[in-house]
């Protein structure tokens, strides 16, 4: 078994309104920053032991499918690195 960190990034699908990101963008603009757009995402770092990177990724993928993301509004990606 190898120790991995699986990083699951969950973000709203393109086209789904993100009022929190819009509010954050407005606050940055009030602070004088010039920006075109801003998107927010949730990142989960999952430490786990697995036989190989593929198994670690598969388990993290299932975590995203079953809890971390809501498929109606979210896309997600999984990246695995040895820890």
């Amino acid at each position, binding site marked *: 078994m190898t120790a991995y960190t699986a990083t699951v990034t969950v973000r709203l699908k393109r086209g789904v309104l993100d009022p929190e990101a819009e509010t954050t963008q407005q606050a940055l603009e009030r602070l004088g920053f010039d920006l075109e757009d801003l998107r927010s995402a949730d990142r989960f770092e999952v430490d786990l032991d697995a036989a190989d990177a593929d198994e670690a990724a598969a388990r993290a993928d299932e975590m995203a499918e079953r809890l971390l993301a*809501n498929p109606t*509004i979210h896309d997600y990606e999984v990246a695995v690195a040895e820890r």
Partner: protein
Amino acid sequence: MTVAVVQFGGSNCDRDAVRALEHVGVDAERVWHEDGLPADADGIVLPGGFSYGDYLRAGAMAARSPIMAEVRAAAEAGVPVIGVCNGAQIGSESGLAPGAFTTNASARFQCEPVHLRVERADTPWTAAYEEGDVIEVPIAHGEGRFEIGEAARADLVADDRVLFRYCDADGNATEDANPNGSTDNVAGVLGERESVAVLMPHPERATLPDLGRSTDGAGILEAFA
């Protein structure tokens, strides 16, 4: 008929729901989620609140608690189930109803009376109304914006599963009458069975005559009578 009002950590409309149900002549009791669903529950309410502090997403944690497997099984067996506000979020998150309820377009918590147009009058939840009736029921949520993918939205409309839409006092489902940016002004939908429904507005807050503006929500709870 005994209705189980499922109480999670952070539920806060459970007592209101019991009291409103009793007002319309329905026996109801609060059931702590860890105690499981009573065998004699012949109706289920998922009440409003902030279960698990809305961690991750509103309703996400409660939707995956063990009692929800029992609730889904009961729903599939035909037991009437309604999710209100946080209960609607839990219902959507657990697959009882289509779509998702997410952050209001305003990015603010909104607590206000709204008008709803009854889109279907031939369901247990709306038998007290006529199709097209306008009722006044309050909302109180920060994550009530109904979102659904385009294909699923088309199915929802084709299957006629929209139960209520936000509208103005005359029944027009306009953008101005949409409090939270919900897709197609959707305020409540049916699950796969007509005996399952979720809605963001609070019928239990518009049932008792002493509470104020409206008792229009009583008809929804009368589904259990």
